[in-house]
């Protein structure tokens, strides 16, 4: 789950990373309460989860006289379609130099990887493509509690020593917060020292519970509802409802629908080991998607038992036609149960999908 800038900055500050003094406001009137804290020039930053926020008009310059009007302006607009619910008003820093630092996971090496650029700020991705040596990277054993000093020196080159310290503090945030990404762009030097001018933090969805995060904000309400039952669910705009087990097989079912010229209405992976009740909820959820004309159930039992799947489909008893393909663990029993109730069953994935495409024309 992505955190907003102000949330990430609070966590960075706890690890000792210096962040600009800031005021968070949900309405422009709230700023009035803090006017004595605003002395010089400020930056007003929309707290929205949007890439390229600055270029899209989400970051505005202001001073004591114009700050309220500037905030009002941000609250009344959307940034790339996202309404602004909060703004962060920060003291404007006297920036001497901008760096880029980012920590993520290198899948191939199975280790943390830290990227660093002498020239940070906007357009870092462009810089990376144009000048391959503009970004340096290091990776090291995930069993180490700190970034080794020799690697920090290699990474940061001629940057001031305080930058190295900040990179190590950012690594502590990355580990403690179960982050998939911890980024500061730009990381700036000022006459008063080093500051994180921006902050990005993405928390591993598998760690939300132990991080004390109850609600995954990245999901829509329907997706959250689906998650309660252990489903991954994405609503699409076609006519063929899809229920599969396992992301790979469900994805392959959607690919096959496209191959045969149909359009899928959703992606629903019931997950491993679904019992009849979960399958019933899945059928109800997909039948509730307004564009659905037919539902394809494509399940291969491993950890999931096909007799449970069959009981779930029967218990759901929806009026939309359901075409079933089940194979694997307890498939015979599942097929027997479904055929007793007159469900249409086909024995391969190609056949069920072709049939569904025919039915929907």
């Amino acid at each position: 789950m992505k955190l907003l800038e102000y949330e990430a900055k609070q966590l960075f500050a706890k690890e000792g990373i210096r962040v600009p003094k800031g005021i968070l406001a949900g309405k422009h009137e709230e700023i009035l309460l803090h006017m004595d804290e605003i002395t010089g020039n400020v930056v007003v930053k929309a707290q929205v989860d949007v890439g390229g926020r600055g270029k899209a008009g989400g970051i505005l310059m202001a001073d004591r006289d114009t700050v309220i009007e500037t905030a009002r302006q941000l609250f009344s607009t959307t940034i790339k379609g996202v309404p602004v619910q909060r703004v962060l008003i920060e003291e404007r820093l006297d920036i001497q130099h901008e760096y880029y630092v980012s920590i993520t996971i290198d899948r191939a090496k199975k280790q943390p990887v830290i990227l660093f650029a002498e020239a940070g700020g906007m357009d870092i991705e462009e810089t990376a493509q144009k000048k391959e040596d503009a970004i340096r990277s290091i990776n090291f054993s995930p069993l180490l509690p700190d970034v080794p000093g020799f690697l920090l020196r290699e990474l940061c080159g001629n940057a001031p020593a305080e930058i190295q310290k900040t990179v190590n503090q950012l690594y502590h945030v990355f580990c403690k917060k179960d982050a998939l990404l911890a980024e500061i762009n730009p990381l700036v030097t000022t006459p008063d020292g080093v500051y994180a001018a921006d902050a990005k933090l993405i928390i591993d969805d598998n760690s939300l519970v132990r991080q004390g995060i109850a609600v995954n904000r990245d999901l829509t309400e329907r997706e959250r509802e689906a998650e309660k039952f252990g489903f991954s669910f994405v609503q699409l705009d076609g006519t063929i409802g899809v229920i599969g087990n396992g992301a790979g097989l469900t994805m392959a079912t959607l690919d096959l629908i496209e191959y045969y010229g149909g359009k899928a209405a959703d992606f629903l992976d019931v997950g491993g080991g679904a019992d009849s009740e979960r399958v019933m909820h899945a059928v109800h959820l997909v039948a509730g998607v307004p564009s659905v004309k037919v539902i394809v159930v494509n399940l291969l039992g491993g950890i999931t038992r096909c007799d449970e799947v069959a009981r779930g489909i029967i218990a759901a008893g929806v009026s939309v036609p359901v075409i079933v393909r089940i194979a694997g663990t307890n498939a015979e029993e599942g097929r027997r149960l479904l055929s007793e109730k007159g469900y249409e069953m086909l024995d391969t994935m190609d056949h069920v999908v072709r049939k569904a495409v025919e039915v929907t024309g």
Partner: protein
Amino acid sequence: MIYGDRKTGIIVTGATGRQGEYHIGLMNEYARQVGGRGVVAGVTPKKGGQTIHGVSVYNTVKEALAEQDAAAAVVFVPGGAAADSIMEAADAGLELVVAITEHVPVHDTMKAIAYAEMQGCAVIGPNCPGFLSPGAVKMGIMPAGLFSQGHVGVISRSGTLTYEVVDELTRAGIGQSTVVGIGGDPVIGQTFADVLEQFAEDPETKAVVLIGEVGGNLEAEGAKSTDVPLVAYIAGVSAPPDKRMGHAGAIVEGGESDARSKIAKLKKMDIPVAARPSEIPDLIRDLFRCHC
């Protein structure tokens, strides 16, 4: 046949949970059919002394190894504690850990795999269905009824999609040597390249099917690393472009990790790529024809 044979004794951790118990039963049913040793011990902290399907349960892997001869562990321990169980098995001296558990925090996975590798222990998974060598050994949750014995290896990031492909192969009369589900998480132990290295040494395996998905870049890395004849299928052509993890993800992975880009990369290496799972058997036949 790779990663184990009929003689490999297996320890199941998380043995007294619903999934652990159920799959001890199925693994041992398979072992009886093929004359293998199967699961010789279960482990669940504080539940030592019980038996499950006739298998003794111990409190720790070390206690289990004091009484039973085993070389591998299959982990069913739930998310937050799975990494600990992987490290325990590696620390006790087992050569192989197959981690079935889903939803393992990725930081835990990174640490557990690094620790296990230091102990000389290979990890398959997490979030994987394990592996099955028809007629010899099953470690994990694959539905044995779909498999048939033969000379084609399968490596897959998916669980159920693997069964789909195995089903297609078996129906087409093409048997399998070993089928390995390596797991779909961002960080996994054995990668395509690692499993291909094993297959290259395996006299039973004449060709390998790679089953990939969107995300990461490990399919092409694996394909580049081997001389074994390959056929591939990549799921996710119709998937909407993946939300990228900031700029760093794109920079680290060095290019696109969507299905179409992956397919293009594999085709550039002259690897036949199936548009549908049901095309895989024909591509395998073509492969054998030109290698005859």
